[in-house]
């Protein structure tokens, strides 16, 4: 492969020696047109955050190759955090540099606008948080090494690239760079079978979705004659397609491909297994990053390039949003594994962003962006807490592990409570405003049913968020007492399709206020609560700092918000 591109390059160099003239002094057709000039200015400023992340990853690898092994165990997270911060600084600088204008640079492959820069900020922040959280986890599991951080940075590179992409080719490249790095991260915990399984499942299904996306790119190209967003939009604005079947098919496949990445129903089947099996801090990173980048791609494609086709894609997104909201919320209730539960929770959260996307308006986009930005803090924080309480070897991921957390570590429980409330959409947290903005945008477009369904889903979801919260604050006596209760299967509305022998598990701590929970896990008829781990959970300083940042941000963004202005400015796409 190296050779092949080399030869193409060599041919080019040989050509540039003779400038625009052919061997006989004649001008070679097509070489000297302004469109295809051999001089290609590269606007480095427009890809600065991505360059920082990518070069940072290379520097990390180089440093690790040059330092003798284990001489600097704590160096890589520090370096990785520094790179993330540098990318953040670069993004902020870009924000002021680009202003409200937007240009496409580097041969029309990159959009330099506030939308790109916004995601530069989101991704940089996520990288910083993930680097801080991962260190203690990786050391605890004996997995520390440079590769984890290099992968974090490379996945970030791909995510930024997806947001910056000015065409489907670039979008696909970003998608692949991010996805492949995430596949490996999912399988990073080599000694846990679940981790390997997660990586494998993610890889297989992800590859399929990439192929589907590519097919969509091909069909869209066939229908519009270009892969660049501007050209596609321009072509569709100028021409009314009589036969738009190919375009619609292409659009549908693009939605499927990107919908997989953001875990929208019905393309969500990988999510629970992958979230459950992946190393916990990486799960948080994956959830924040893949969602942000996937939605950046969806927004670019649908509201950018295909905005003239709104009448066609909005109903599709409507359906997907409804399914995502309801199935995510309902399935989460039935889970007994914390990471699985959070996986379904993240699916339902994606539904709200889809609601914002479905609005197809500037307000909807702003709401989606705000949602993605705030959600990054919440989900990284949530999985950071889960990573702490699960204990070495990810021994405890069940609901019982979190029981009585408030008694053991009140601070940790408080942080977790904030994250849970934010995800449930309780006022005074960022989650409330985020949900409010996307639903408001939806209402503005007259989508009352969708708004009502979204609120209904929030109510359903509040159930299991509060359930975790109550478990955390369950007192001593309750924690010791609850006996597993077996009841015959009744008319569990959500689990109607399940076998009649399905057990209803009544949690003793919760029977007072809440209904019994249907268990979808048919194999286990009884549920025995293992006693919660009694040893004191150590909180490493880096994780504590990260949690503090996330909590402060979640509350700050929920009280008074310059963030939404930030997001509103960022909707200025080309």
């Amino acid at each position: 492969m190296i050779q092949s591109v080399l030869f193409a390059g060599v041919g080019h160099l040989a050509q540039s020696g003779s400038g625009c003239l052919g061997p006989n002094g004649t001008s070679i057709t097509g070489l000297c047109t302004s469109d295809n000039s051999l001089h290609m200015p590269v606007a480095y400023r427009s890809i600065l955050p991505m360059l920082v992340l990518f070069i940072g990853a290379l520097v990390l690898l180089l440093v690790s190759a040059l330092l003798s092994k284990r001489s600097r165990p704590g160096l890589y997270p520090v370096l990785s955090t520094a790179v993330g911060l540098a990318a953040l600084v670069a993004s902020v600088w870009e924000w002021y540099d680009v202003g409200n204008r937007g240009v496409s640079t580097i041969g029309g492959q990159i959009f330099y606008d506030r939308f790109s820069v916004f995601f530069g900020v989101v991704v940089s922040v996520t990288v910083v948080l993930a680097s801080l959280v991962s260190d203690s986890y990786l050391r605890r599991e004996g997995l520390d090494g440079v590769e984890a951080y290099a992968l974090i940075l490379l996945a970030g590179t791909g995510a930024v690239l997806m947001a910056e992409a000015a065409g489907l080719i670039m979008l696909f490249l970003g998608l692949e760079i991010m996805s492949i790095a995430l596949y490996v991260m999912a399988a990073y915990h080599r000694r846990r079978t679940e981790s390997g399984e997660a990586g494998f499942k993610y890889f297989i299904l992800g590859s399929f979705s990439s192929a589907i996306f590519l097919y969509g790119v091909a069909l869209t190209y066939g229908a519009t004659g270009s892969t660049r967003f501007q050209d596609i939009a321009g072509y569709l604005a100028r021409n009314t397609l009589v036969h738009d079947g190919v375009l619609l098919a292409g659009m549908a496949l693009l939605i499927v491909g990107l919908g997989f990445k953001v875990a929208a129903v019905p393309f969500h089947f990988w999510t629970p297994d992958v979230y459950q099996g992946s190393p916990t801090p990486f799960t948080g990173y994956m959830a924040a990053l893949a969602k942000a980048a996937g939605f950046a791609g969806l927004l670019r494609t649908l509201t950018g390039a295909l905005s003239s086709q709104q009448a066609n894609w909005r109903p599709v997104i409507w359906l997907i949003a409804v399914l995502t909201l309801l199935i995510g919320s309902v399935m989460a209730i039935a889970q007994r594994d914390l990471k699985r539960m959070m996986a379904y929770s993240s699916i339902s959260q994606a539904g709200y962003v889809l609601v914002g996307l479905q609005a197809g308006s500037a307000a909807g986009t702003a709401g989606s962006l705000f949602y993605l930005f705030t959600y990054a803090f919440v989900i990284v924080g949530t999985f950071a807490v889960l990573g702490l309480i699960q204990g070495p070897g990810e021994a405890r991921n069940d609901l019982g592990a979190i029981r009585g957390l408030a008694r053991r570590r009140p601070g940790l429980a408080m942080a977790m409570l904030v994250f849970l409330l934010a995800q449930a959409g309780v006022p005074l947290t960022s989650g409330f405003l985020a949900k409010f903005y996307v639903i408001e945008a939806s209402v503005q477009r007259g989508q009352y049913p969708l708004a009502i369904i979204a609120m209904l889903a929030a109510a359903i979801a509040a159930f299991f968020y509060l359930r975790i919260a109550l478990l955390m604050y369950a007192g001593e006596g309750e924690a010791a007492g609850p006996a597993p209760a077996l009841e015959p299967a009744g008319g569990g509305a959500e689990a109607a399709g399940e076998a009649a022998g399905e057990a209803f598990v009544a949690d003793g701590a919760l029977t007072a206020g809440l209904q019994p929970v249907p268990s979808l896990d048919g194999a286990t008829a009884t549920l025995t609560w293992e006693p919660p781990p009694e040893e004191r959970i150590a909180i490493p300083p880096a994780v504590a700092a990260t949690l503090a940042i996330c909590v402060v941000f979640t509350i700050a963004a929920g009280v008074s918000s310059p963030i939404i202005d930030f997001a509103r400015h960022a909707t200025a796409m080309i």
Partner: protein
Amino acid sequence: MTAALLAAATGSGAHLAHASAWAVFGVGAALILTGAFGVVLLRNPVHSALMLVITLIGVALEFIDESADFLAAVQIIVYAGAIVILFLFVIMFLAVDRREPAAPEPTRAQRPLAVLLGLVALAELLILSRVQHWSSGAHHVAGSLKGGEDVQKLGESIFTRYLLPFEMTAALLVIAVVAAVVLSRRHGRVAAEMSPAEQEEATLR
């Protein structure tokens, strides 16, 4: 194959060019289909891999037919010359080259469903090829191939308009390297995760 290659590479006779282009297309198409069916139908993994090579050579022929000589050469060098060789390498190393026992399908409906979807895709392509104006083709992304050799054209494209996509594939390659290291390295296990017997074994080692 040699004859076809040479015919395509050198053929410029006016009346013969058309016929030879068709001949090349026909041979290429036959090779592609033979190979594709072989890959799916043959039981032995090595035979399937060889059939894949035949498909790749057929594709290379079609590239030549479209005067994309460079792509044809790359197709052979990279795919036939390196990638399938690595397939074979792995097949031989893992010794999975025995006849697969006809294991029961995990999902009963899988096979008919696959056939059905394949037929749907085929029908889709056939319909698309018959529908007029399906490709509105506003303009080509690539320049015209008139003048200059296609290697030079490709070089220009890669180093001007597609510079960034080309460079960013470097990130993919870096990830591939890191991934290979991560996935192939044997980690020592922490004692807490071992059974007592394994711990004993570890000390004895």
